């Protein structure tokens, strides 16, 4: 049974079919790429998966559970986390507060013990602090724990967003153009980071990306989306030589 099974998923906005008849399967621990030209519907797919949009047709099964009608927070609680194309941090909060918010859904104490500062409050807060610091250490951000998130350099904001998504302890991580706005060196570091995250956290990753070197470098399988439809799938080598993909990206050859 695959971790994620997208079956005949479609989404229309009025007359526009943003995504049609999408079939994708992701197994435990896989690293999958989703690529396509601008406006192909990649982010719409993410929004459908995470409950931001309601699909017009088709189904999404995650860990054999039907995800239809779940709200975004319920999707996250069931083990699917995402980052955004345009970074959406809690920019006026500190780095560690950003991560602690991700741990909220696993917090162990009630509102009442928060009001009255019962022992479970202190135990819960200490555990959350410890976990958050551990996670920041992994991402080399522990020195900046008390820094306000918006003051971080761009690359670190990206890293923090990924760290925060991992704080929800997902089984599947959806990364929406993580390399956007990064220079080649940063992209290279990001590639290593993504590989390493997959092993360390034992999860599957679905990656939307424009940067071909990144996708070809890290993904085991790639889906190519164009006008809301899958036009090709396979290993990076197969994709590179697929005429349909070349056509979608570069246009038809004029004889």
């Amino acid at each position, binding site marked *: 049974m695959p971790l994620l099974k997208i079956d005949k998923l479609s989404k229309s906005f009025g007359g526009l079919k943003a995504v049609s008849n999408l079939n994708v399967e992701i197994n435990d621990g896989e690293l999958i790429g989703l690529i396509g030209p601008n406006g192909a519907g990649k982010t719409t797919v993410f929004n459908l998966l995470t409950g931001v949009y309601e699909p017009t047709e088709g189904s999404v099964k995650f860990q054999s559970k039907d995800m239809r009608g779940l709200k975004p927070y319920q999707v996250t609680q069931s083990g699917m986390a995402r980052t955004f194309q345009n970074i*959406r941090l809690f*920019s006026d909060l500190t780095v560690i*507060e950003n991560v602690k*918010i991700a741990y*909220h*859904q696993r917090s162990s104490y009630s509102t009442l013990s928060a009001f009255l500062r019962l022992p479970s*409050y202190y135990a819960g807060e200490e555990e959350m602090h410890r976990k958050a610091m551990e996670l920041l250490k992994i991402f080399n951000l522990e020195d900046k724990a008390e820094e306000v998130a918006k003051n971080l350099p761009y690359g670190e904001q990206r890293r923090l967003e990924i760290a925060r998504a991992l704080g929800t302890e997902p089984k599947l991580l959806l990364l929406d153009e993580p390399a956007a706005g990064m220079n080649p060196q940063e992209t290279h570091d990001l590639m290593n980071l993504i590989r390493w995250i997959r092993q360390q956290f034992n999860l599957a990753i679905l990656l939307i990306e424009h940067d071909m070197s990144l996708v070809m470098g890290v993904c085991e399988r790639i889906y190519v989306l164009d006008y809301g439809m899958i036009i090709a799938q396979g290993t990076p080598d197969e994709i590179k030589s697929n005429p349909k993909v070349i056509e979608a990206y570069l246009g038809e050859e004029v004889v």
Partner: protein
Amino acid sequence: MGKRINRQSVLTLVGVLLVYAIVQGSIFMDILPPFVALTLIQVCIFIILATSLNLINGITGQFSIGHAGFMAIGAYVAAIVVVKFHGPLLLALIAGAVAAAVAGFLIGLPTLRLKGDYLAIATLGFGEIVRIVFLNTSYVGGASGFSVPKTITWTWAFWLTVLSIIIIRNFIKSTHGRACISIRENEIAADVMGINTTKYKIMAFTIGAFFAGLAGGIYANYLYIIQPLTFSFLKSFDILVMVVLGGLGSLTGSVLGAVVMTVVSAALSGWPEWRLVITAVLLIVMMIFRPKGLLGTKEFSLSFLGKKGDKNASSKD
């Protein structure tokens, strides 16, 4: 983290006890002018109102301006318990606060789907509905008002205020409070982080309403008489001004805002025709030079009094 009792909390405790003792002492020695005593109780009432509104507006970022409505519910329910059922004061206050919280919950369910200006208008409408309902209910005296015996003393008002601040602060500094703050910061991101945003908005609204109701109960049992006109939208704006003046998102800011506005308003009571003009000018100047309020989102602390104030003590919320 770590140390549960630090220099900050000891200093705060000493400060609180000092304020209480000075006022209580001067009441005991009968040297406190009645006007000052009245102002002090009003300061307490407004501190509770401002901090609880800040929980909704500043911490959770839901712009509500119907706080006088919750205050009215608390005031009338507390008054009914005391006058009609001869209940004890504490029971009356709790009943008022709980009634306001229930109203907050029920109003929050539909209105918190709205955002920004729309929520503001809906809550404004709610406040007016509450006032008009009391205005037309002869059981509670209608427009002429509802007489209530004065049973609130400085001790009651002061410690209830301290208790309210502590409970609201404890909430804000917990994971539940952080969930509320994350909604203010970025609702979409909060949702994707697994936070049930609707639940936390309603929770903040309900807690805020609870304390507004408590403040209403204190008000009703101090001022001899309550009238629907007291709880008009102008009262809501007064509270909002205090919150904005002190800094949206700062609890100590709300306390400061409530103190400043109440004292300024009391000090200017000799020139009633100029009072509103001067407070308005004050606000305009304030918004030009410190648009984020006196304290912004920072918290004021006494830790600078100690030489080696530990780092946690002055950390912002």
